[in-house]
């Protein structure tokens, strides 16, 4: 007999978004509710498989009665709440937050940002040519990952994925504080000296391209990376009996990257080193 877990019954909560009354299951976040209602709230640090870090402050909305704006990714809907997602206040906040980020960080490989900046009229140049940035040399100290922390927005997702939320390797952390805060191993040691097990789950969740797979990075550099020529096929990993879902990204009849669907109930997007990187043998023809 097959049993399907439908969870405990949840009450519906009624609240208002931009003048529209919406009913959502109790416990939903404002972001969940708005997404379900077809509203588009930009996010950067939100991870579909991670607890919200609510650090980027891009998804801020106005909740009547609240002194400050609130992060829609982590604030739960309450009955009777009145939410504005597109007010003067939220637009200004979104614009300035994007400007601040773009003035300090290289966002050239962050999906969505260019459009949001155009929409809000963000102009990071107004902080002047001498605005401090987090620009720094790219770190390549192993065969699998490239770390380009000049692109890091400190969303905490890689730390959470490496730590207690998924992998339990705890190889990386946020070190330092303030503008000097950065993702780091202990004493900034090379990744091979750290507790890293090369599962690639940090790369999987990175929203900006600060972390990337070496293979992809190399191909981008020599101009041979072309997503329009790629196909994605989801299959089952053959290394062990767990049954992880693998998505093979193939370009010109060659596997160039392996990911896993976030909605997979087995992996939730996570893999181990074998599933993620153990595909060279397929191509040894």
């Amino acid at each position, binding site marked *: 007999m097959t049993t399907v877990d439908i969870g405990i019954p949840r009450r519906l909560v009624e609240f208002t978004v931009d003048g529209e009354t919406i009913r959502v299951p109790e416990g939903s976040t404002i972001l969940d509710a708005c997404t379900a209602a077809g509203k588009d709230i930009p996010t950067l640090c939100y991870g579909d498989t991670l607890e919200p870090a*609510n*650090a*980027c*402050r*891009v998804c*801020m909305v106005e909740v009547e009665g609240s002194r*400050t*704006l609130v*992060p829609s990714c*982590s*604030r739960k809907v309450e009955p009777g709440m009145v939410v504005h997602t597109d007010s003067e*206040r939220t637009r*200004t*906040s979104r614009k*300035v*937050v994007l400007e*601040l*980020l773009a*003035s*300090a960080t290289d966002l050239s490989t962050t999906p969505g940002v260019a459009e949001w900046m155009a929409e809000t009229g963000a102009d990071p140049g*107004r*902080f*002047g040519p*001498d*605005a*401090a940035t987090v620009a720094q040399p790219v770190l390549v100290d192993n065969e699998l990952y490239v770390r380009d922390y000049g692109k890091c*927005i*400190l969303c905490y997702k890689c730390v959470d994925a490496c*730590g207690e939320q998924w992998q*339990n390797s*705890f*190889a*990386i*952390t*946020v*070190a*330092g*504080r*303030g*503008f*000097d*805060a950065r993702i*780091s*191993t*202990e*004493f900034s*040691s090379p990744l091979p*000296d*750290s*507790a890293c097990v090369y599962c690639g789950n940090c790369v999987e969740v990175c929203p900006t391209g600060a972390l990337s797979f070496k293979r992809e990075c190399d191909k981008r550099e020599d101009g041979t990376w072309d997503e329009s020529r790629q196909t994605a096929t989801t299959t089952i990993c053959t290394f062990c009996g767990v049954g992880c879902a693998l998505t093979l990204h193939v370009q010109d009849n060659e596997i160039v990257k392996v990911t896993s669907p976030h909605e997979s109930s087995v992996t939730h997007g996570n893999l181990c080193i074998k599933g993620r990187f153990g595909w060279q043998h397929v191509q040894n023809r």
Partner: protein
Amino acid sequence: MDLKLLDAVASHEEREAVAGFAGGGRDQLLPALHAVNDRVGWISQGALNLICETLHVPPADAYGVASFYSLFALDERPERVVHVCTDLACRITGAETVCDVLTEHVGAAGKARGGVTWLRSPCLGVCERAPAALTFQAGDPATTELLAPATGASAVLAAGRAPAAAEGAPPVIHQKEGLRLLRRVGVVDPSSLDDYRATGGYAALRNALRMGQAAVIREVTDAGLLGRGGAAFPTGRKWAATAAQPAGPHYLVCNADESEPGTFKDRVLLEGDPFALVEAMTIAAFAIGARQGYVYLRGEYPRALRLLRNALDVGRERGFLGVDVMGHAGFSFDIEIRRGAGAYICGEETAIFNSIEGFRGEPRTKPPFPVEQGLFGKPTVVNNVETLVNVPLILTEGAAAYRSIGTEASAGPKLFCLSGNVERPGVYEVPFGATLRELLALAGGVPEGRSLRAVLLGGAAGGFVRPDELDLPLTFEDARAAKTTLGSGVVLVLDDLADLGGFLLRIAEFFRDESCGQCVPCRIGTVRQEEAIRRVLAAGSEEQPLLREVGGVMRDSSICGLGQTAWNAIESAIDRLGALQ
């Protein structure tokens, strides 16, 4: 979890420092880091490995925590470090001269030379004796020496020899009349429980135990006690909400991480009347049903640390802490001191929890609020030192008598920290409703021959008041109506010779330095704010629209109070004093 450690071994000294932590958990991380830093002066890879093995903490995590706090060094540092306060009060009383002399004779800040280095420090909390410097000497035991007031010559001297274990002079209260909160300070021996009891000590706890839990909360609620840490939240409501939580255990945390530049009232209470805090915490614990309390004490208060430790030891010995407190069967309570390590943000009520638990001192998102999920995820009350010290008064005088002091909405006595260009800097106690003019008069006003330029009320997160606004009654409601704040009680006086621009720049630097870095508006906004102020001061450029927009978004979208208030003082200087034009 298997720990993978870097290839480094702890020295004999480091092993000795960590030995006492065997069997400890992650919440011992901050004390263990202190133990090594105190003993050796810095934390090596080998020492961090050993701490991680002992407490079973992943090394990257421990590194992230250690690198968060400014008093810890992760690169080799000399055993002796002179911290020179360059913050608000010290800045206007000559801190830069001290720095210049040190640079000339000892070398540039942060450069090691002959077993010593000196560093610029945020507020050391001895603003009444500014400028101040504090020397840490690593060793067994580690020693400290407070220089206040410091001169270039005394700082050079301190850099040249091991400290004489001087923790500075005891606090002096200039005021003689009408004292309640300060009545024992400078009068009783702060190390003597008998002195404390001879002046009415522990009568309040006896009353509380007789009245019972609910009646104590009612009394505190009826007294109208509002939190004195800056947020002015009703204390009784906080206690009642925590007491009512079914989840256990409940915790009590005393916020003694007094790091707001210009604030030193809690230090004066801790140094002058430590048993009062212990008694007050015991009453609070009884009311909310807590068995364990923590005092989160800032790491820069050596004298307060010694006296508070003594108060806890003596209290335990004499049955005022521990099992069946004061013979009251079934009520057990004890207090642990947690020493901060140089991070203003750890005064934020949820950052305190992370810090005590052994994580980076980053604030948590609210809700959930501490009364529901606080320390170790359990219902927790966080109260400021001054707030707590009001509690014994309420339980001896009664709520009605207490309420008759101050105003309807701001009941009771209030401590203010006067510093800067004022004749007699120090802590002053007045009933709420006294005017700023009366308070300045108590402290003797600005020095002879000078005139008042402005008063910074509430600290770096507060706002400026002009000389024509001195009739402002000092209450929470009047301050709010005047679009300023009493904050933690800072009254920093600037005279006509004060360099207002430089002062504002220091405020901006302070917030940039102290931002935890978690959220974008604060992490980057505080940097852009400082850059814009530098441009105004250097080239007179027009930066107001930019400052207003960034400041507004820091206020609106930052996670915690630090980012939300980082623009307050600068905005009020622009709007009320016409600064940065």
